[in-house]
C-alpha cells in the first residue's frame, strides 16, 4: 500500500463501520490496538496482515483493501482472539463478517476458499449431508490442484472410512426450502 489520505477515507467509510455494528454486532471503534488478538492467533504466521492490522485498516477507512485481503481467508475461525480480547471486539466475528461482505462485494481473494464453500453448501443443499469424497474430488478437479489427502484415500477406503456414494436425507425438499427462504429474505439474491 502507498501513502493514503486518511482524513478522506475515514469519513467516507462510516457506512461500512455502521453496518458492521448493526448487522454483525462488531464495533471496531472499541479496539484500542493492544495486539492481544494477533499475539495468540495460531494462523498469524500465514497472514500478510494480522487481525489487529485488519481492524486498524477498517478503522482508518481501508475497506476495499480489507475486503480483498487474502489474510481474512487464512483465519481458522478458532475464536481464540474473541475469548482473549479485553475490549469485547470479537475479532473472530469481525473476520467472519469481512468474509461474508467480501463475497457480497465480489472481492474474494482466496479462490480456493470460495470454491470450497460453494461445493460444501451445494452438497448440503442437494443431499442434506456433506459428502466428503464427492466434495474433495470436485475440489481437486475445479481448483486444478490435487488436494494433499489424495495420498490417504486408499487407506481411508480400506478402513471403511469413506463411502463413494453420498448419503441423502429423506426430506431433501426441506433443504431446498431453507436455502430458498434465506435467499428470499435477502431480497432475491444470495
Amino acid at each position: 500500500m502507498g501513502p493514503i489520505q486518511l482524513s478522506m477515507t475515514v469519513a467516507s467509510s462510516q457506512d461500512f463501520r455502521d453496518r458492521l455494528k448493526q448487522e454483525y454486532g462488531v464495533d471496531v471503534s472499541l479496539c484500542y490496538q493492544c495486539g492481544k488478538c494477533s499475539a495468540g492467533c495460531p494462523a498469524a504466521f500465514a497472514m500478510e496482515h494480522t487481525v489487529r492490522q485488519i481492524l486498524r485498516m477498517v478503522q482508518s477507512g481501508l475497506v476495499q483493501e480489507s475486503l480483498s485481503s487474502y489474510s481474512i481467508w487464512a483465519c481458522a475461525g478458532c475464536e481464540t482472539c474473541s475469548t482473549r480480547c479485553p475490549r469485547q471486539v470479537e475479532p473472530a466475528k469481525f473476520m467472519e463478517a469481512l468474509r461474508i461482505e467480501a463475497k457480497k462485494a465480489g472481492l474474494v481473494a482466496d479462490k480456493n476458499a470460495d470454491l470450497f464453500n460453494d461445493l460444501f453448501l451445494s452438497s448440503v443443499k442437494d443431499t442434506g449431508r456433506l459428502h466428503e469424497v464427492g466434495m474433495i474430488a470436485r475440489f481437486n478437479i475445479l481448483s486444478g490442484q490435487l488436494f494433499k489427502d489424495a495420498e490417504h484415500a486408499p487407506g481411508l477406503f480400506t478402513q471403511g472410512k469413506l463411502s463413494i456414494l453420498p448419503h441423502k436425507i429423506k426430506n431433501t425438499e426441506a433443504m431446498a426450502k431453507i436455502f430458498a427462504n434465506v435467499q428470499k429474505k435477502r431480497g432475491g439474491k444470495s
Partner: protein
Amino acid sequence: MKYGLYPGCSLNGTGIEYGLSTKAVAQKLGIDFVEIPDWNCCGASSAHNRDHLLSVALPARNLALAEQHGLDQIAVPCAACYQRMKAAEVALRDEPTRREVGEVIEMKVEGKSRTRALVEVFTNDLDAEFLSSVVVRPLSGLKVASYYGCLLVKPAQVAIDSPENPMIMDKLMAALGATPVEWSYKTECCGGSLAITRPEASLGMTANVLKYAKLAGADCIVTPCPLCTSNLDMRQKAAEGLLGMELGLPIYYFTELMGVALGLEMSQLGLTKHFVEATSLLKNTPAAQ
C-alpha cells in the same frame, strides 16, 4: 438415561471409530442414544462464512426435529457440529430470531432442546463412584495429553469448560487410571478448517500441537472430536517430515480409552482403524500384563 444423538457427517465416515466406541461404551454404561430422525448437516464450516441466518437455520431444523420427538437433550460428538448447534440454540433464545428462523425452516421451533457435547454427557452426567466401579482394566502407566481443540471451549457463549485450561477430559483420564500430562497446547487450534484450502498453513498448526504433546512427555493424545482426530492422526506422518522429528503418537477418542478401561475388545472399539498404530501401546500398559 436417554439422550438424542446428532451424529454429524463424520461419524459414519472418517470418525468411524468414534461412532463404534461411543455405541459400545453407551451400552455398557446403560446410556440410551436416539438418533435424531432425518437430521441434516449443520453447515459448518461454510454456512457461517456466507450467511449468518443460514448458519442458524441449518442446525435449527435439527433442533426442531429433536423437539418434535421429545428429545430434551442432544448429545453431539463432533466439536464443529456442537459449536454450530449450540450457537443456534443460543440465537433462538431471542424471540425475533426464533420467529425469523421458524419462517425459514417452515417448522415450529421453541429452542427447548439442550445441546450437549458428548464428552460432557460421559463425564459430568456420570456419577464418579459409578464410573470407577466399572473400570476393570485401569490404564495405569499411560501418559496422556488431553487435546480439546478450539470449538468446544470457545467462544464463551457455547463453552463447556475453560478456554485456556479445560480439565474435563483430564479428570476422566485420571478416573480411568491414566496419567494426564500438563501441557500448553490443549486448546490451540490444529488448523482443521484450513486443511483443504490452505494445506501448508494447516499442517504447520497440526505439527505444533503434536510437537508440544511429545515434548510434554505424552505417549499419546486423547480428543473429543473427529475433525481434530483425523487431522492429528492422518497428517502425523507429514508433520513428522515438517518437524524433522519422530512423533509416534497414537490419537485416541476419549470413548476408545473409556471402552478399553471398561474391558471392551479393541476391535469392537475401532482401535484397529487408525493411521498411527494404536493397539500396541494399550496392550503394553502395566495393567494389561
